[in-house]
């Protein structure tokens, strides 16, 4: 069966986008990417530290992987645009995750600024994947201005709370059909990733839950399997929840003859 995720005409087998922040040991990253089977990996940009000769993250990411640069640090559309342009200049493609955050406590994306940045960058030919608060109007606006996918948060970033924004994400899944929906932020366990996929999300992006597990390689494999499981379940059309019990074995007894 051909069940592919398509983002900006790129066909992908994996529905697991992996973030690379917070890894304790960078050498685990390569194995983790391998175990995850991810084809898209997020990175960020930062000033080089000239005093210590730190490792280049790119050396841990296989060449065939799509780099998705996060504009983290941007507090408004202009800053996000500036970061995106720098990223493109680096020569690793034009995929960008717009993340505009104007609140240092909850780290919530600012939808209005995100729409502005998306519009500018899409017009410049970027493949724009905006991180957003799930809001139907904002999602429609993002699609209209050229987002290649939309990435609503499942719950607070790094919280591992799962799909707390379920009501609104379900609405996005039902209503936004032109681009994929990628649940980003807050997914903390394979069961939660499976749940997002069962709901009909097209993919999930996970970072904290992988990088901060005791064994990132093993949990990456677990997430990979659970995301496939959730996708298959969505395709298989699951049985409904019932409020009553229903026997799975024949109860009519030969014992009472």
């Amino acid at each position, binding site marked *: 069966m051909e069940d592919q995720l398509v983002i900006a005409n790129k066909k992908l087998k994996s529905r697991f986008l992996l*973030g*690379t*922040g*917070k*890894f304790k040991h*960078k050498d685990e*990253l390569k194995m983790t990417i391998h175990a995850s089977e991810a084809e898209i990996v*997020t*990175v*960020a*940009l*930062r*000033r*080089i*530290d*000239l005093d210590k*000769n730190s490792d*280049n*993250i*790119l*050396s841990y990411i296989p060449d065939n992987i799509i*780099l998705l*640069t*996060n504009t*983290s640090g941007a507090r408004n559309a202009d800053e996000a645009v*500036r970061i995106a*342009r*720098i*990223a493109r*200049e*680096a*020569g*690793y493609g034009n995929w960008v995750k717009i993340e505009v955050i104007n609140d240092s406590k909850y780290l919530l994306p600012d939808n209005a600024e995100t729409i502005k940045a998306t519009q500018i960058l899409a017009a410049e030919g970027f493949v724009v994947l905006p991180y957003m608060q799930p809001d139907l109007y904002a999602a429609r606006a993002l699609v209209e201005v050229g987002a290649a996918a939309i990435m609503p948060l499942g719950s607070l*970033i790094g919280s591992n709370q799962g799909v707390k924004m379920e009501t609104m994400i379900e609405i996005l899944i039902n209503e936004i059909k032109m681009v994929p929906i990628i649940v980003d*932020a807050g997914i903390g366990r394979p069961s939660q990733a499976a749940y997002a996929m069962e709901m009909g999300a097209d993919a999930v*992006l996970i*970072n*904290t839950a992988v*990088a901060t597990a005791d064994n990132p390689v093993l949990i990456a494999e677990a997430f990979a399997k659970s995301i496939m499981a959730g996708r298959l379940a969505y395709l298989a059309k699951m049985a409904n929840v019932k409020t009553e019990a229903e026997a799975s074995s024949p109860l009519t007894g030969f014992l009472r003859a």
Partner: protein
Amino acid sequence: MQITVNGNNTGIEPKMNIRQYLGTRQIDLAGVVVEINQKIIKKQEWEITELKDGDIVELISFVGGG
């Protein structure tokens, strides 16, 4: 000659272009981007772009991110 690199003042030799300057530091150049005075300098222009006194230089590269 004084320039600011990633927020720190540094004295450098005059008449140095970007590529030469980068050569003086030990940096893995894969994925490095150079901004001078908030303008990106494309890689192919590194050799023909000379640093000037007072330049504000940003050297940026990739790190892990989510």
